[in-house]
């Protein structure tokens, strides 16, 4: 079936991004230590969600400064920087048995 939605670049399965990047209030990447294989478009996508999170919280009368999203294999940490954000992607290793 033909998809009507924009196709996203698929990454190699199992490869989890690790690094830091910052973006301004418009969602433009300012600086990054992300690996080269990680597309800029995906950084913008993550950044957009983070900025929307802080912005919507502000609109809900709950201004927030720090965000942590916990996934089983990744933690996304973000700091609100006057409308922009500093975002850390931290892969989580499984505890050793």
């Amino acid at each position, binding site marked *: 079936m033909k998809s009507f939605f924009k196709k*996203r670049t698929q990454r190699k399965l199992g490869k989890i991004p690790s690094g830091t990047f910052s973006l301004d209030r418009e969602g433009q990447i300012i600086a990054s230590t992300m690996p080269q294989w990680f597309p800029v478009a995906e950084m913008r996508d993550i950044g957009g*969600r983070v900025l929307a*999170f802080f912005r919507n919280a502000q609109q*809900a*009368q709950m201004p927030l400064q720090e965000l*942590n*999203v916990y996934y089983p294999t990744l933690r996304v940490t973000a700091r609100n920087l006057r409308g922009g954000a500093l975002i850390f992607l931290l892969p989580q290793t499984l505890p050793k048995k």
Partner: protein
Amino acid sequence: MGSTDTATRSKILLVDDDQDFLEVYWEFLKTLPSGPEVHTASTGPRALAMLESDPFQLLIVDLNMPKMDGLQVIAIARRKYPHLRIVVWTCIADEHFRARAYGMGVDQYWQKPGSEHDRQNFLDSIESIMQRDTQGGFRGVQSKSLVDLIQLECLSQNSSTLKITNGSLKGSIWIQNGELFDAETEELKGETAFRKILAWRTGNFELLPGDEARERAIFSSYQGLLLEMAQEMDEAGGPVAHNDGSHVGMDGMTPLVGLTRFEGVQFVLSVGPEPKCELKSYGLESVDLISDWTQKSLRDFSDLGDFLQVGPVQQITAMSTSNNVALADSSKGDLCVGFRSTLRSDEVRETMRNILAKWES
């Protein structure tokens, strides 16, 4: 030791690194009806040296000063001179500093006056402190319930304005000659506002001079209102607000109310599964706004997890100086829990994990 003259005439020490402010307010404070002796210091160390050499009744101190900031001065002054009245006088509007200052035992926290009206309020408030000192009385209780405070003010036949802050919420209660006159919070006024404010579980308060111009909007006695509130809260096991804003009892809400027994929890909101998306909340004001934000945030980051192939969202935590909040998806729908801002990120995460386990069970 001070002379007899010093003992009878109140002494104020004004501390600020801004020389212009010092000069202007030195003039203003001198004209107060209680006729205080006003001294100034432009640095923290100088102020402490002056406190050491002379007995002062009131210290008015700025927070933002070079070398030694106002909080350091307050910490030393509060320890060495426990009966010294302390008023913070600053440009910093941050709630975090306000809470810290009150936690250190200051009497009042003022933002530097920006208008003639503000200036007059500030001076009235200082005069009120000086007069209370000359009239005698006990002080020193830094943490008391709002009900205690209202009872104290009414029983003493005082006229005062109570300003209460609960996170982003602000409220005021006006008392005139020991009678409840009016209350206001958000868009509410009178008795409704009074009930709303009393249902808050935590917060900071400031006791300011009364406002004689305030028109009376509460005509019930304070004893009757406090008693009714106590009964309602007792029956409900605490203040419970349903999503339509009405207050309800424990029936049908027990599991949600039970979640607030966890350490540091301030509010709980659950959004039931689609298509009904039934809302239940406890201790929360802006239920609709927060529930929309909760659903959108969980959906957004769940999509992101799928795309990055890192699994489902286990939990989202977010912090600020005034709010800590955690969001999670459960089989019963979305859950949003507000915590005291003093909890650390790892404490919030661990408590939320336990809350989820209880909620699921």
